[in-house]
Structure formats: structure tokens, C-alpha cells
């Protein structure tokens, strides 16, 4: 378990991280979300013992990062931001160095390095200088270094930054697979990544935790959550708006139909209108809306219950706005 207790870090008069506390257990993949400069990397640097906290502390597998840094480091695999490595070395030598420092000797060391190069698809570049590798390969070298000792705790600072979509998918699969038996913290500002990979997300803004929950929970804070997007054919917008506003639990209805200037919307020569119905707080309106439309016998072209938009939650939480 990683337990972070009122971790605080000042840089001069700036509070980069301000009294953050949370715990992450085995089998959890925690996504650290936040705009650039929110304190994600600083927090990770403190958990990995690289940066001493101004106050507060963290324990990794029971070892305090301030009092027992070496024991804590031995349990952690860390991928720093933009995965730095000794560029003048080749991949094999670099991993052999990491293995040596991680305490492996002789055959075991060699086998570890060989195995991790296979896992991370590095065999073809084993004897290439890291400097000459593409960003994707360098990222994999960083991963290999972090996974080498099969650590219980993985801390990954923007693991998919700068990778192409295929590589991103590859990395996400790898993380998900590892997440079953490890405890992983990863930081990102890509929201789909959190939805795709993480079992829990913490949003930080200006050094403070502003939200903590599963991606679904966070999404449900969105204003859009539970709203219905509706497309109707051959119905006058005026009539539809007036009628739908009276449906039970509907808070308000907005017209999203593209204007004539934008090309309008037509299907088989008939006009299409697009509306969005927002529910009152905590209510579901799908059933009521459906039966109302049925009663009116309107022709429906689309009916979507929105799950909520993590982008919007993220934006409102970190810009000082208020999410519902």
C-alpha cells in the first residue's frame, strides 16, 4: 500500500503541493489528473523519495520515504517524466546497469534483462545506442528499467506522452495487465486514458485534491450526466420544445439543431431537429421522455442517454468553476 499523509511541498513562496493525503492499495490503478503545473510530478517525486517534502510524508509498502528511502526505492519501479536514460549507453548495457543496482548478479541478472527486453519488445534494438532510438523505443527502455525488478509499486509519470496511438494502446494494455497484482499510480492529462485504464482517479488543481473517485463517479458529476440527446424528424422545433419541457423531471431543453447557415439537417427531404434535455438533479428522465414521444407519435432518429463528460468535469474542477 502507498499511503500519502498531508504531503506538502513549497518552492519558495509557491505551494506546489498543498496537504495531499490518499492511499492506494494492491490491484488499484490510480490515475493522477490535473492541468500542467498542478503538482502531479512533484507529488510523484516525493513518493519516489527524489524530492524531500516540506512537510508530511508518505509510506511505500510500510517504508517511510524520508526515514527509509532506500527500502522504499527498492519496492518502487519509477518512470520519470519523459523517461530519462543514459543516452550514450546501449539498451542492453543500460538495463544491465539497472539490474546490477537492483541487486541482481550473474545469470539471474542476465536472465532478468533478457526477459524484460522481450516483454518490452526491445530485442531488436538491444545493442543500439539509446540516443539513436525513437521516442517510442526510449519510452519502452524507461518501462523496462521500471519493471525490471518486478516491483510491487509502479509510479509512472505520463507514461504515454509522445507515443503514437498504437503505442499508447500497447502501453495501456501493459499497464492494465500489470495492475491486477500491483499497485500503480500514473499521471496523465489525457482523459480517455483514465477512463480506459484506471480504476480510480484523483484530480488535482493548484496542489490540492479536488476530486477522488472512480472514473464513472467523476463523470456523473458532469452536468451532462443523465441528459438525453434527441433527434426528431419532421417535427417543428417550437412544438417539441414546448412539449418536452413539461415532461416530468426535465429541468430544461436546449435546441442543438445546426442552423441553416451551418447547412441545417435534413433526412429524406424532411427537417431534422436535435434537442438536449437536462434532468433535474439526481433524476432519470429516459422513461418519461420515451413515453411522451410515443404518445405524440413523433418520428425518432436518435435517442442517447449521456454518460457525462470527464473533460467537462475536469475543466470545471480545475478552472475554479463548480461541478454539480
Amino acid at each position, binding site marked *: 500500500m502507498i499511503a500519502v499523509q498531508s504531503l506538502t511541498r513549497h518552492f519558495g513562496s509557491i505551494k506546489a503541493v498543498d496537504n495531499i493525503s490518499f492511499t492506494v492499495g494492491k490491484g488499484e490503478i490510480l490515475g493522477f489528473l490535473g492541468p500542467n503545473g498542478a503538482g502531479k510530478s512533484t507529488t510523484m*517525486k516525493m513518493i*519516489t*523519495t*527524489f*524530492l524531500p517534502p516540506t512537510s508530511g510524508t508518505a509510506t511505500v509498502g510500510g517504508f517511510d520515504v524520508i526515514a527509509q528511502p*532506500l*527500502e522504499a*526505492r*527498492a519496492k*518502487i519501479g*519509477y518512470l*520519470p*517524466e*519523459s523517461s*530519462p*536514460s*543514459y*543516452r*550514450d*549507453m546501449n539498451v542492453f*548495457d543500460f538495463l544491465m*546497469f*539497472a539490474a*546490477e*543496482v*537492483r*541487486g541482481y548478479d550473474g545469470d539471474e541478472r542476465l536472465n532478468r534483462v533478457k526477459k524484460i527486453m522481450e516483454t518490452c519488445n526491445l530485442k531488436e534494438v538491444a545493442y543500439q*545506442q539509446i540516443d539513436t532510438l525513437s521516442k517510442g523505443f526510449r519510452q519502452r527502455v524507461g518501462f523496462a*528499467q521500471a519493471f525490471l525488478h518486478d516491483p510491487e509499486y509502479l509510479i509512472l509519470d505520463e507514461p504515454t506522452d509522445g507515443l503514437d496511438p498504437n503505442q499508447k494502446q500497447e502501453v495501456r494494455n501493459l499497464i492494465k495487465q500489470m495492475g491486477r497484482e500491483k499497485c500503480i499510480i500514473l499521471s496523465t492529462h489525457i482523459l480517455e486514458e483514465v477512463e480506459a485504464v484506471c480504476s480510480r482517479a484523483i484530480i488535482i488543481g493548484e496542489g490540492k485534491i479536488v476530486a477522488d473517485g472512480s472514473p464513472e463517479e467523476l463523470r456523473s458529476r458532469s452536468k451532462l450526466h443523465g441528459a438525453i440527446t434527441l433527434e426528431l424528424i419532421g417535427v417543428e422545433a417550437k412544438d417539441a420544445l414546448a412539449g418536452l419541457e413539461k415532461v416530468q423531471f426535465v429541468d430544461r431543453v436546449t435546441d442543438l439543431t445546426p442552423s441553416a447557415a451551418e447547412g441545417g439537417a435534413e433526412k429524406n427531404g424532411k427537417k431534422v431537429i436535435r434537442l438536449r434535455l437536462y434532468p433535474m438533479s439526481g433524476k432519470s428522465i429516459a422513461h418519461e421522455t420515451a413515453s411522451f414521444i410515443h404518445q405524440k407519435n413523433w418520428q425518432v432518429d436518435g435517442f442517447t442517454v449521456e454518460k457525462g463528460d470527464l473533460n467537462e468535469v475536469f475543466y470545471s474542477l480545475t478552472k475554479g468553476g463548480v461541478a454539480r
Partner: protein
Amino acid sequence: MRNFKAVLKRELKSYFESPVAYVFIVIFLLATSGCTFFISRFFENRIATLEPFFIWHPWLYLFLVPAVGMRLWSEERKSGTIELLFTLPITLWEALAGKFVAAWLFIGIALVLTFPMVLTVAYLGSPDYGIILSSYLGSFMLAGGFLAVTCLFSAMTKNQVISFVISVVACFAMLMLGVGVFTDFLNRYLPVWLSDAISAFSFFTHYQGFQRGLIDSRDLVYFISVIVFMLAANALVLERKKAE
């Protein structure tokens, strides 16, 4: 100890995997023999001694040692590998000593490669091998002193050029404190005990002892304590600056 060795090996290897090592060794060998033969006129002296060879070492080290050491920490900080290094289960001192000793050994290798000078002088006459040995030891200790100073300034900045320039200036100061011109100047204005004390802090003063064939424990202790002091300061600087 194993981590110290791991860092040392990695560091030493990285010298030889980049052109730095070869450029340094070639320049060092050319410069030492060039100065010995063309400026000190080794042959024309007709004396079987390596004094005209060793007398140049402080002045060549003044530029060459900072060139070897300038990247030690500034490069780690600039490229971010310092974050990697200090999140591996290595202590600060293991990393510090490993890197320092690697660079020192590297200079030592260059120094050993000057052996044809010894062969030359042995072929031409019968030199005092004791003096040659103690001079080599002195030269190696001097290089260690310069290197420790360079290490310290290398940790202070991410910029290798700044690290080089400041190291050269600092090494120059450490050297000049004991050079004749400067001590004469001090003698004129300061009491003798004070100017003596100042020149006692100089690399130059202690290097000269070795050139006379004397391995004085005070000179050894001087160089070792300079190195330890500089490395301790280096450790403090790194603690404070590593994350910047």
C-alpha cells in the same frame, strides 16, 4: 559497495563509449610531450630527469581536468537522469564516490599512457626511479584535487560551459596561491606567517613536494582532505539542487 562499483563501471564505460576519452587522451599526451620536448627542451638539457615533464602537469590539468569533470553532474541534471539515479536504491555517497573515482581513474589511465617518457629517459641515462614514482603519485593526487573542485561546480549548474569556466577559475586560484609570483606579492603586504599559511593551501606547494622525490604524509593528507571536503560540499549542493 556493489552500487559504488556499478556506478563506477557505468561511468568509466561511458567515457570510452563517447569520443571524449580519445580526444582527451590524445590531447593530454600531445600536450605533455610537446611541452617537455619543445618548451622545456628535454634533449638539450642532457639531464636524465622527468622534471621538465612533470612541471607542466599543473598547467595542463588546469584545463583538461575541468574538461573531463564538467559533465559529471551538470549533464545528469540537464538530461534528468539524476532523477533515475536517485530513485534507484543507491545512496548519495555511493553515486558521488562512484562518479568521482571513475573520472579520476580515467585521468589515471591517461597518465599511465605517458610511460614512453619513462622509457625514453631510461634509455638515455639512469634516472632516479624513486623520484619518477613519487612524481607520478603527486601528479595523480593533483589531478584528484582539480577533479574534486570541478565536481563541486559541476553540481551547481546544468550548463556544462559554465561548469567548465568556473571550475577552471577555481582551480587556477587553488594553484596560484602557492606560485612564486603570487607569494612574493603577498609577502610584501602580509606578515610572513599569513602568506605562508595562504600558500600552504595551494595545490602547487603540495605538488612540489612530490617532485623532489618526497612522499610527505602531510602532502598526501592535504590532497585527500581537499578531495573529501570538496566531495562533502558536493553532496550538500546535490541534496539541495538535484530536483531543480
